[in-house]
């Protein structure tokens, strides 16, 4: 049984709270490490021992299926003891504050806590009260760093590079932590980023993120190498941000006709879960240009990479 990966990259920080602040080298190191885990995950024997004896708590204040499952698998394959806590079963329901939850968990001596929370900045607040490593699995509309990393790994494996590519991120940018983390990462890696959305779904000041802004799909997708679609929450579809599902799909939903505005070899991504027929057409989602299923596979690998890289900083014995 292999004990540790060949790659010896160490992330020189205790927590992974966001892409903001990571260097080009940090990102490349994590992607390279992720590559190794992709290969491992395709073998029958998927177990490693680098987190043996470690306790990983997945603390999810917001419901998630794929991210939580992905982190759970990642931790278990590295040999950690993984415990899942969700909002419905936790004392948060009984009025305990976030900080008290942190203090309580801290007393149980976990090594790594993976946190998702509906409020921007909540993970940072928790991390300030915890002695262990904290991984942000999504905080409000702020950041979702492992999603951006898995997207980057997916892009790099399919295009051979990130630098110089044109990536169009389309949809609800305003409320999206995925968009923010991706914009920061792709800019750091030298890609050219465009955001495409109706103006009601763009935050004020977005043009200062180093992105090109388009309100129209034809303009926004023109010449794109990657088309990254975002999920539109149902409660935002009925007149508050856009008039209706059908109008949204008509102008901003990704179908074959709109995809044709992008480069012929453009690839389509979506962080999931998809609203088929709202932001993306099934034919495109399941088509030859789609990387959506591969993204899920990369998710486990990149989370293993993050856990592995952070664990190399943990005090041993």
């Amino acid at each position, binding site marked *: 049984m292999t004990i540790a990966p060949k790659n010896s990259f160490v992330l020189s920080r205790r927590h992974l709270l966001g892409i903001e602040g990571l260097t080009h080298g940090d990102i490349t190191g994590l992607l390279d490490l992720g590559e190794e885990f992709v290969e491992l995950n395709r073998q029958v024997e998927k177990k490693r021992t680098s987190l043996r004896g470690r306790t990983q708590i997945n603390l999810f204040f917001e419901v998630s299926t794929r991210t939580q499952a992905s982190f759970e698998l990642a931790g278990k394959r590295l040999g950690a003891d993984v415990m899942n806590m969700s909002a419905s079963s936790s004392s948060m329901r009984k009025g305990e504050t976030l900080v008290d939850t942190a203090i309580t968990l801290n007393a149980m001596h976990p090594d790594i806590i993976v946190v998702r929370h509906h409020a*921007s900045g909540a993970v940072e607040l928790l991390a300030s009260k915890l002695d262990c490593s904290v991984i942000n699995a999504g905080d409000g509309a702020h950041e979702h760093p492992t999603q951006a990393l898995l997207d980057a790994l997916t892009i790099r494996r399919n295009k051979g590079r990130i630098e110089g590519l044109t990536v169009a991120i389309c949809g609800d940018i305003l409320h999206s932590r995925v968009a923010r983390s991706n914009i920061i990462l792709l800019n750091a890696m030298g890609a050219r980023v465009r955001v495409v959305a109706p103006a009601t779904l763009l935050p004020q000041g977005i043009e200062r993120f180093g992105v090109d802004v388009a309100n129209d799909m034809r303009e926004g997708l023109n010449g794109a190498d990657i088309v990254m679609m975002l999920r539109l929450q149902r409660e935002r579809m009925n007149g508050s941000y856009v008039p209706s599902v059908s109008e949204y799909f008509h102008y901003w939903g990704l179908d074959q006709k709109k995809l044709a505005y992008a480069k012929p070899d453009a690839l389509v991504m979506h962080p999931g879960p998809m609203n088929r027929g709202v932001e993306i057409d099934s034919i495109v989602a399941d088509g030859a240009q789609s990387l959506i299923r591969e993204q899920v596979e990369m998710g486990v690998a990149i989370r293993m990479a993050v856990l592995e890289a952070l664990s190399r900083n943990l005090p041993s014995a």
Partner: protein
Amino acid sequence: MLSDRRPILLANARIIDPSRDLDIVGDLLIADGMIREARKGIGAAGVPEGTETVDCRGKVVAPGLIDMRAFVGEPGAGHRESFASASQAAAAGGVTTIICQPDTSPVIDDPATVDFVLRRARDTAIVHVQPMAALTKGLNGKEMTEIGLLKAAGAVAFTDGARSVTNAQVLRRALTYAREFDALIVHHTEDPDLTGDGVMNEGEFAARLGLLGVPRAAETVMLERDIRLVALTGGRYHAASVTCAESLEVLRRAKDAGLNVTASASINHLTLNENDIGSYRTFFKVSPPLRAEDDRKALVAAVGTGLIDVAMSDHNPQDVETKRLPFAEAAAGAIGLETMLTAGLRLVHNEELALMALLRAMSTRPAELLGIPGGSLRSGAPADVIVVDMDAPWIIDPNELKSKCKNTPFDEARMTGRVVRTIVGGRTVYEFA
């Protein structure tokens, strides 16, 4: 010492009286709870027997500050701040009159509650406390309060606190009716629909933090509407807390048109900006939100010219439990009674604002607008006086602050200049050794 009411001679002081643009080196004599005179060379010979003589050695002597917007927890939230604790903080900060807000529990919307506040403050506070009363019953924004009776009971102005009256008809009638009593209407100008779930200034910084923004238009839309209503009614109107450069244009037009319109800005908006929020520091979450640096500079310049009449603390004590939360979920508000002057002195030391203009906005103008004594060092004015050491360096230690809550945005901040003596009604109520 604290109950001593001997005459006091503040000798060798730099006497600044914004009520008559006076800035001289001289002596100030206080006796019988009043200012006797302020001039060069009163000296020990010219004072009554038993006078306490204080050699000020060039320190500034000025009218005590009148803080036009401070939330005190009584009645209903005395655990956050009582009149006693607020007044201790005020005295240490040079505030000799606190104008408390009506958004208490119960709301200060009937004469009996005004009476309660005045009596409670008289019995427990070491500085003057004067309440504003609610503009609408229960702050519900629907029915106006008993403006005449409330004013007769001692309410100095009418406001719905941190709430805006969205119904233009209600505000129109209140402005019209209040004319009869020459009552001042103070209005929080923030359109609640445009504010929505916003928690900080809208723009790049909010977008980066993933927080929903409050557009400047939430303020200007409401302010523009209000100005139209003032033009329609001829009422006396005061914008409670303006925060952005665009609002200044609106105010300028209203004043140029001769309307009875005045405005305040909080010390937070005059000395801080949205970047201070950093990584979700909730002590910088205030309502309306901190704006950009350009807005801050424009506000300071407007205090300098008098376009903004008043600088106030917007004192709002919040517990650890309401602040130690994710930013969007944390309560808005910062304490400020004890720090408003020293924070304002930053502007003076940075040469952004003249000391005279700062003191005028914190003492003389509030007195004039509210029609209350104070804000002046003229003979016969009440002896509400402060002595300020302009150059004393200090670091704000939240544990030493007198307020019950410690939610100061100036936590650990380095300051230059502090109040060394506060005199209320001729009595020294605070002295920094």
